């Protein structure tokens, strides 16, 4: 339930914590005192600090955690999985278990380890493990150490990247598609020469060509996406053209080839008769509504051959 697409754009007030402490701890603040100095800047995103209790725990003793990991491997892994996300024998995912998440210091986990559990929630019963309290606690500490590595918005702890092959398309069909739809603007001996060398990651290559966005090493003076041009016809009959800076229903602004910034009110006594936008990505936008996934994968496979 990501409620909002724009959270990355937020900035953060770091001064709040300091102000708060000043207000709650000072019993007799001196009148006329200047405002507290600003605290260090806050996190870059709302997720860059320990959001929930599982991440807020102080790190456990590494030796205990290591012992817990070894014990987990012997007694727990077969059912709960090496990554704690559930195993073949039907043990539940421990990283989203309310019992685990609500546990503070083993008080909930240790009895389950030592006494087992009857079948519940549609899963198999859990056998009892005759482990001394210190061992059961070590397992509990290990589980908490993994919970603490979960990523934002409930994602599992990061794991070594799995080698995934995104090049499933047919380069021959991709070449045909390219000839039919792309060649009027792009050339494999021109702008796309060596594109697969420039962008070696096939997923980045795909993101880049579908969006019409230049990726790879930046080239000075070459923008990531080509600028949109605009032709403004004034009520007086005069025209101006240049690079579009802003357009809404009420104003339009541009920079002319000479580098002059101009803006216009679109309605009113000295208004604008017409605004013609030339969006160099128009064809890319159009194709977004037409590609099948197979077209997309084929063209990516073809472009990936252009080393």
């Amino acid at each position, binding site marked *: 339930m990501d409620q*909002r697409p724009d959270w990355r754009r937020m900035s953060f007030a770091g001064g709040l914590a300091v102000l708060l402490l000043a207000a709650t701890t000072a019993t007799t603040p001196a009148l006329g005192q200047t405002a507290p100095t600003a605290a260090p800047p806050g996190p870059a995103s709302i*997720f860059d600090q320990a959001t929930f*209790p599982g991440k807020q725990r102080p790190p456990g003793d590494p030796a205990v955690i290591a012992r817990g990991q070894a014990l987990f491997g012997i007694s727990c892994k077969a059912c709960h999985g090496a990554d704690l996300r559930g195993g073949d024998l039907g043990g539940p995912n421990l990283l989203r278990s*309310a019992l685990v998440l609500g546990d503070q210091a083993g008080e909930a986990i240790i009895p389950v380890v030592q006494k087992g559990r009857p079948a519940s929630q549609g899963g198999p019963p859990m056998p009892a493990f005759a482990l001394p309290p210190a061992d059961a606690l070590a397992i509990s500490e290990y589980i908490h150490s993994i919970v603490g590595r979960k990523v934002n*918005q409930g994602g599992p702890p990061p794991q070594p990247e799995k080698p995934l092959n995104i090049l499933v398309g047919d380069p021959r069909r991709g070449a045909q598609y390219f000839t039919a739809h792309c060649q009027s603007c792009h050339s494999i001996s021109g702008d796309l020469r060596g594109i697969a060398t420039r962008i070696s990651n096939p997923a980045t290559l795909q993101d880049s060509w579908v*969006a019409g966005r230049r990726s790879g090493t930046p080239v000075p003076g070459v923008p990531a996406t080509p600028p949109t041009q605009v032709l403004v016809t004034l009520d007086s009959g005069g025209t101006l053209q240049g690079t579009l800076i802003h357009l*809404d229903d009420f104003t339009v602004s541009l920079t002319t080839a000479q580098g002059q910034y101009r803006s216009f009110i679109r309605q009113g006594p000295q208004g604008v008769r017409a605004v013609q936008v030339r969006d160099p990505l128009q064809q890319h936008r159009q194709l977004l*509504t037409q590609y099948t996934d197979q077209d997309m994968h084929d063209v990516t496979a073809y472009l990936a051959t252009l080393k």
Partner: protein
Amino acid sequence: MTRPARCAMFLVAASLGLCGFALAADPTQSAALPPLLPPAQLLQPLKDSWPTYSGDYSGQRYSSLRQIDKSNVSHLSLAWTTRLNGEVRDGRSRSPFAPPSNIITNVGGEGKGDYAIPPPAVKGAVLQVDGVLYVTSPDNAWAFDARNGTELWHYFWKTRGGTHIASRGPALWNSSLFFETPDDYLVSLDARTGLENWHVPIAAFADEYFSTMAPVVIGNHLLVGTGNDSDAPGFLQSFDPGSGKLQWKRYMVPMSADDAALKTWPSLDAARHGGGQVWMPGSYDPQTDLYITGTGNPTPGYTGVARLGDNLYTCSLVAVRVATGQIVWHYQTSPHDTHDWDSSQTPILFDGTIDGKPRKLVATAARNGYFFTLDRVTGEHLVSYKFGTTANWSKGTKPNGQPDPNPEKSATVPGSLVSPFEGGVTNYQAAAFNPDTGLFYTHENTGFNILYLTDPDPRGSMGLGGKRFSIVGYTGNAFQAIDYRTGKPVWRHVWPGNGGTGTSVLTTATGLLFTGDTNGNLVAMDAANGDLLWHTGIGNISAPPETYGLDGHQYVLASVGDALFAFVLY
């Protein structure tokens, strides 16, 4: 329930000789005053006040105020503007550029005060009752004079943490003001003073719940929802607004083996971690005594492999009996969602005619790009239409009107080209309905992303993990006026440019619409045809526009981040 040590702040204030406001805020004096909003008043037609999330229970966001009309809206001018101040203040004015203020922040909360929170921003309802505006932002609540924007009190909640994404606004019951906190408390304040009455926990913080919903008062029930991005069950709760005591808790996924909805899940374990959060206010029909709410996406969000089935009651319209929490009917607007497209949008209730037959209706425009009209008494499906022009993720609609998801448009290893992108065709933004035009108004985001599966584990991923998406283009975002009888747009206005997101809508009895465009303007439109009648470039509208009447003036209120703007005719 915990009662705060409110005396401490009074002593500090008194010792500083700054007791002017503190004396005015004497709780015993406040208690002797008549209630600000007896709950029965919420059953009255919407007029001068804005006493609940959508103005009234219908969700229409339709105001009967008539002073501002098509002929004079172009003369709207700024009455006042003010900015939210989230600082914990001690009564001294800090800025030489700010008007004198002796605000003393009332501080509550269970945290240590060391958690960095986002700057204040309005992303939900502002209530207006008796000339006072009530505003919330995560961990903050304020009261302002609705005539001039003067701050009257500020309450700050020391959080334990949690996802500080938004507060969707407060609720009023008699003289109590309620709001939810990101660390899962329901806080009750004295609305006249901003002093805390009590706070109660509403969800297990350890399970990664975070609470943003604007509570809804219905009689002696306070309906409270919460949110969660991890794999935890969603629920709606009802609290006693006087005491904070839980009345009932209704899960939106099966929690026991005898639940009939369990057949839409592969296992009880999957269901109990299946999401369906309730994080937006619903609407209420006093005639049938049904509270109708949308529910959120199933979890894990992007990997449906371990939760095959329709996953009831996620991504659904659910009609709940207010007294008991019993589900009377449900209709799933997005079966087996795999894109994080909640169906949480506040539904709109109205009466209309379908196929020549008068009907009591409910309509919603969902984040997945489909518009629905149902019979709100029975839940019978009447209309489906894909209003998201570019939405490409379904194979069409099933005989019962539900979209039929195309599995190939879930996240795939080589990438699937999906529209809309992750944020949806619409999201939490409020739509509106004007009974005079018979049209349903909503913004429409277009746009495509490539959605990659990065965790092809047969057990599925967790939460919103296991995927990566790359936005690859927009095709023009728009505003639509939809005929509820067909779901088709009667008119559609495309905002110039690419990107940006549309905002919530207000409509009036004089045939006006107020909304934000995608370029930082508050605009007034002709509800009949979309003609642009007025605009002002105050920034991206972050909260639903509202209107209220005071002293013979009709105000239009809009919020941009931490700034409130009130417009009026002179």
